[in-house]
């Protein structure tokens, strides 16, 4: 929406996270933020338990002073959790257990990283 205040630049890099926010996932998010942060990072987590998700991400979020970061949580799987702009902007799909890989849509399989 346009305004006299100036337009918010939406993040254009998306990371999908499926499963738990393990220390490995957090480490990987840190690297992804370093690489893609200047585009702004949208992190979509599914399925979720909101208080626990944000708590696990607390240090990661508080260590970032530079880049725009948005965190979304979804209660169902990847189909809903895909990037709103399609798969184009999805830079990684982090999966916390190998059993969950099969639920990742085929269009995103090339970006799956299993991080335990």
């Amino acid at each position, binding site marked *: *929406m*346009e*305004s*006299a*205040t*100036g*337009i*918010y*630049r*939406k993040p254009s890099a998306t990371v999908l996270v499926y499963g738990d926010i393990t220390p490995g996932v957090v480490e990987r998010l840190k690297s992804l933020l370093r690489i893609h*942060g*200047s585009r*702004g990072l*949208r992190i979509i987590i599914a399925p979720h338990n*909101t*208080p626990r*998700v*944000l*708590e696990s*991400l*607390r240090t990661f*979020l*508080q260590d*970032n*002073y*530079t*880049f*725009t*970061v*948005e*965190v*979304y*949580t979804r209660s169902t799987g990847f189909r809903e959790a895909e990037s709103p702009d399609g798969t184009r902007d999805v830079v990684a799909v982090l999966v916390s257990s190998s059993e969950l890989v099969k639920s990742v849509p085929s269009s995103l399989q090339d970006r799956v990283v299993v991080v335990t």
Partner: protein
Amino acid sequence: MGFEVVITTDRTMMSNHHGKEFLGFVATGPPISMPEKLWLYICAPKVKVDDQGRPVEAPYGLRKIEAALQNAGFNAAVVDPDHVEKHLDSVKAILIGHHDFFAYGPPSSEWWSITGIEPVNRRSFIRFMNSPAIREAKRRGARIIVGGPAAWQWLYELELAEKWGVDTIVDGEGEKVVVELVDKALRGEDLPRYVYVGVDNVPRVEEIPTIKGASVNGLVEIMRGCPRGCRFCSVTLRPLRFIPLEKILAEVEINIRAGTRGIILHSEDVLLYQADGVRPRPDPVLRLHEEVIKRIGEKKSFAWAHVSLAALKYAEENYKLVTKLTREIVLNEHRRILGVEVGIETGSPRLAREIMIGKSKPYPVEMWPQVVEDAFRIMHENMIVPAATVILGIPGETSDDVVKTVELIERLRPYRSIIVPMFFVPMGALKTNKWFLRDHLKPEHVEALKVMFDHTIYWAEDIIKLYMVSPIHLPARLLLRYFMAYVKWKVKKIESAIEEIVKK
């Protein structure tokens, strides 16, 4: 017709604190020695509102968000917390801002950790979130977005966020992102749980909107950001922006028209307005003050939010700027003092080098204690009354650092000022109510606390006399005196007990 977007906060924020910004700090303490209602009377009296519940004065940050949303065409307004219910039929988004939602910031966290009693601001905010109007708005589907300088505190209170149905936590300068979020909220779209506003999304100076209504005690921002780079401060990571004079004066006029008692120039360092790096330039600072004072006249109050001690020393020694500002422009028989917050933080050059190497610039960091002393002398001579902070217990601090701080504070005794300790309290530690300051104090900390307390009590009476001159302040002045006497008595009582605990 009601508002679709209600911007609000709890009473400790939505108040003009009897026209005395400093009284707002009283809300950071726990309600000891008198009923909470009386505390609230001292620190947070209700504000005047119109028939839609819009306050005459509101926190500056909320005013900026209101302006951004109104400029973008939303039916949005700041509403007093007691009047949210008037908008239950229309409200679709409630935006809540605060400086210290859960009392985890200084000095609330210290009071809390000393006494083990929840501070008034936290109690008030929790009451507000549980209030029937907010609950009913949520039940009817309103989205709740929280933000402001204390947004980070929500990451330590996620259960409460869940319980109250907070949809989004926004950390960082909000003027641009709020337009996007409210647009989504009103369309019923998915909202992010958390947003950090990066440097690419902070508004450029021309994108910062002009407030539409008066701010609490006429606070007007003159710049954003700070070039000094202290390790413990996030302000410094944002780009430095000077607000153009015309925009500042437009906000001054909005406040004066609304009848605020005066103006507070807000900046992390007022003397660095249009500065050359960390070196103040006299012309823009003089012009700014002349123009503001011309608009507020002789009788209205005037204060600075913050100034750095190094800039103050430099400005006076090179241009006599402080003397010119106070004696030729600001002070008169109605404005007898100029209040300001300053940061001493430490008296140890070693620790200063570690945590705030830029704070003494353009002077070398080794000179820091001398910079502080000189600046305090200059302020005293020019009737500037600082409320200074000192940080204790920061990781990496040694006993020798604290001793140096104590020595410096002793040397500041001749200068009229308030010195407030800020004890480093680890985040999240207070929530369980099991973290007490007394368990973490070293003997030299006790000495530092005593020296600061003695200094402040020594000057308090004199400052209250100069600060609260009007007869309308009499009740608050009497209550403050009573409170000070109580604190003196209480501190005497617990002093020896703390020393015993520390020895053990």
